């Protein structure tokens, strides 16, 4: 098992001229589970979008490194190739673009030397779909087109399983999922965790953190990490909200 380190150093990000992240430091290693919590509008999704290289999120300071390699200004596909994956909070629909073609192209781009046969590839996809209790017919549908909220989330997880990242950021993967689906998704995250993948789990709720217990809990407030702790922090947030945490 190779080890991967994602380092976020004093990261400052502006969106449409407004500073949203005001110096964020965070290090995530293979096999670790980090939870990121914080009030609405704190900048959690902004961090995710910035990490995958969305061009509308302008980095005004700081660095993003994977295994010491500077990816601060890299294209999204270079970050994906370095092992980064984001399950989006609100995955976008792309009409007409079939999941089958999309996944296969992505896989071939990430693993150009593997030359997996068509049959093996789709068997792998179908196994993952079965684990997530997704109907196989989804494979011929267009990306997120007409998907329900929960179906979009499952599709994000499906992509994570198929594309095998090294560090995965899950932005509110638990919201919109029914109780049973949440169990399936948690089980998948645990499987990947066993395979030494590192996680940043962005969430508002305790529920998912009961299944996948984070070693580290961080609280983001107004663009800054205001607390680094462990499971006790998320327990207290569940009880008391964010008021007690000082900026």
């Amino acid at each position, binding site marked *: 098992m190779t080890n991967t380190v994602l380092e976020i150093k004093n990261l400052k990000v502006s969106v449409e001229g407004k500073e949203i992240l005001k110096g964020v430091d965070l290090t995530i290693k293979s096999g670790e589970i980090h939870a990121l919590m914080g009030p609405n509008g704190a900048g959690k999704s902004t961090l995710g*979008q910035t990490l*995958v*290289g*969305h*061009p*509308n999120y302008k980095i005004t300071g700081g660095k993003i490194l994977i295994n010491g390699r500077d990816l601060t200004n890299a*294209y*999204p*596909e270079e*970050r*994906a*190739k370095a092992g*980064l*994956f*984001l399950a*989006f909070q609100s*995955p*976008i629909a*792309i*009409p*007409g*673009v*079939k999941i*089958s*073609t*999309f996944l*296969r*192209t*992505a*896989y071939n*781009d*990430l693993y150009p030397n593997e030359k997996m046969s*068509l*049959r093996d590839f*789709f068997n792998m996809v179908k196994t993952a779909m079965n684990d997530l209790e997704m109907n*196989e*017919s989804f*494979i*011929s549908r*267009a*990306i997120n087109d007409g998907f329900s909220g929960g179906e979009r989330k499952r599709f994000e997880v499906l*992509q994570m399983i198929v*594309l095998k990242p090294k560090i995965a950021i899950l932005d509110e993967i638990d919201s919109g999922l029914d109780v049973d689906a949440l169990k399936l998704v948690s089980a998948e995250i645990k499987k990947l965790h066993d395979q030494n993948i590192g996680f940043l789990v962005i969430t508002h709720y305790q529920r998912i953190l009961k299944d996948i217990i984070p070693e580290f809990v961080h609280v983001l407030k107004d663009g800054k990490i205001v607390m680094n702790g462990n499971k006790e922090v998320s327990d207290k947030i569940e009880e008391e909200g964010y008021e007690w945490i000082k900026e």
Partner: protein
Amino acid sequence: MEYYDKDEEIERLTESLKNSKKSDFEFYDTIEPIYSTGKGLNRKTVEEISDIKKEPGWMRESRLKALDIFLSKPMPTWGPDLSGINFDNLTYYTRPGENKAKSWDDVDPKIKDTFTKLGIPAMEQKYLAGSVAQYDSEGVYGSLRKEWESKGVIFTDLDTAVQKYPDLVKEYYCKAIPPSDNKFAALNGAVWSGGSFLYVPKNVHIDLPLQTYFRMNGEQSGQFEHTIVIADEGASVHYIEGCTAPRYNTSSLHTAIVEIYARKNSNVKYTSVQNWSDSVYNLPVKRAWVDEGAHMDWVTGELGSKVTMIYPSSYLRGKGASTSNLQITLATKGTFKDAGGKAIHLAPDTTSRIVSKSISLDDGLTAYRGLVRMNEGASRAKSHVQCDALLINNDSKNYTYPFDEIYEPTAEFSHEATVGKIGTDELTYMRSRGLSEDEASSMIVLGFMDDIMKEIPMEFAVEMNRLVKLEMSKMGAVG
């Protein structure tokens, strides 16, 4: 496997094209024509063409009348700029050889080589019930499987049909599109050469498509084929056209006529994908007469050319006649594609559906110019028009000119139009999974055309796929 078989096959074929020279359609041939009328157009040119073809008197007269109409009509000024066409500098008739072969072995080796590079004989073996190949002004090859020949199907170039089936040709020639219709219909009427003649007898259903492939090789030349498709009562047929040309610095002109007669209860599908090089002005006139209970499908892909003006039309003449008109237009750098479908409802219970998808790249310009007319008496007629435009760059442009003339109170008509861009969020989503920008944007473009891609034959889907990928990779950043 069933879900992704077709996509995968398209993908695989597209990849295989990348590695072969076949993907380059713009190659030149070194074939010296055996005869040409030389530059320019006058009465003598027209008489010369008619003489070479040893035509009957009625055709010769029809040509000369059409010439007068052509000379008397002004250039249309309501659409794209046509001032780059220099009628005096064009060569109107070029004969590549003497031979009209029934077997590829009998085709002039150089010409055969061209069509082999374009993949035509291979396609014929796999997918087609019959095939005609035209090189510059003349059909050089024609074949029809025995099975259909024995059922009375006629499939040949129009020149041959004029000689062999004069009465049948005369019954239909220029009925749907008379030379008086417009300047370019008149031009074709005067100098037409080649094109296909397809007649399907009553109740004959041809299961595989028939195809004509047009290759224009000469510089500053014109190709003016005239095609007539007749599906007699209760017959069904799928007719396909493909066309390409090398690229020159000077302009060529392609002004075809396609007349389709879908007789009572027949079913006709016409598919054409043109990929002319961008030195070609492409100004064809295509029209179908659709009789009672008959159905006409148009599927047209306008991928190449410098300027295209094309408005395939269905005249729904009999009760319950219906038509569907699917069109993709792609305007690359420096090109203007003015296109649209027309449906003329002349009888009760007629229905039409027009779907247009246009894509503009760089400073390419697409315009949708369509017409739906519902005459008084076309009771309960229904029509739906949808036109979607995709603009890839900031300079890309699209205009929409829908003309709706509804004179029947019980008719139903609806129109939807959208204009979109490739969004940063979509691109980022796809790229965050490992796709390059080219790959992501090609996929979005192909996704935009998906409705129509489903309806077109595999070979054309592959060509479409290849072309979109090529154009997107030539382009640099989207935006």
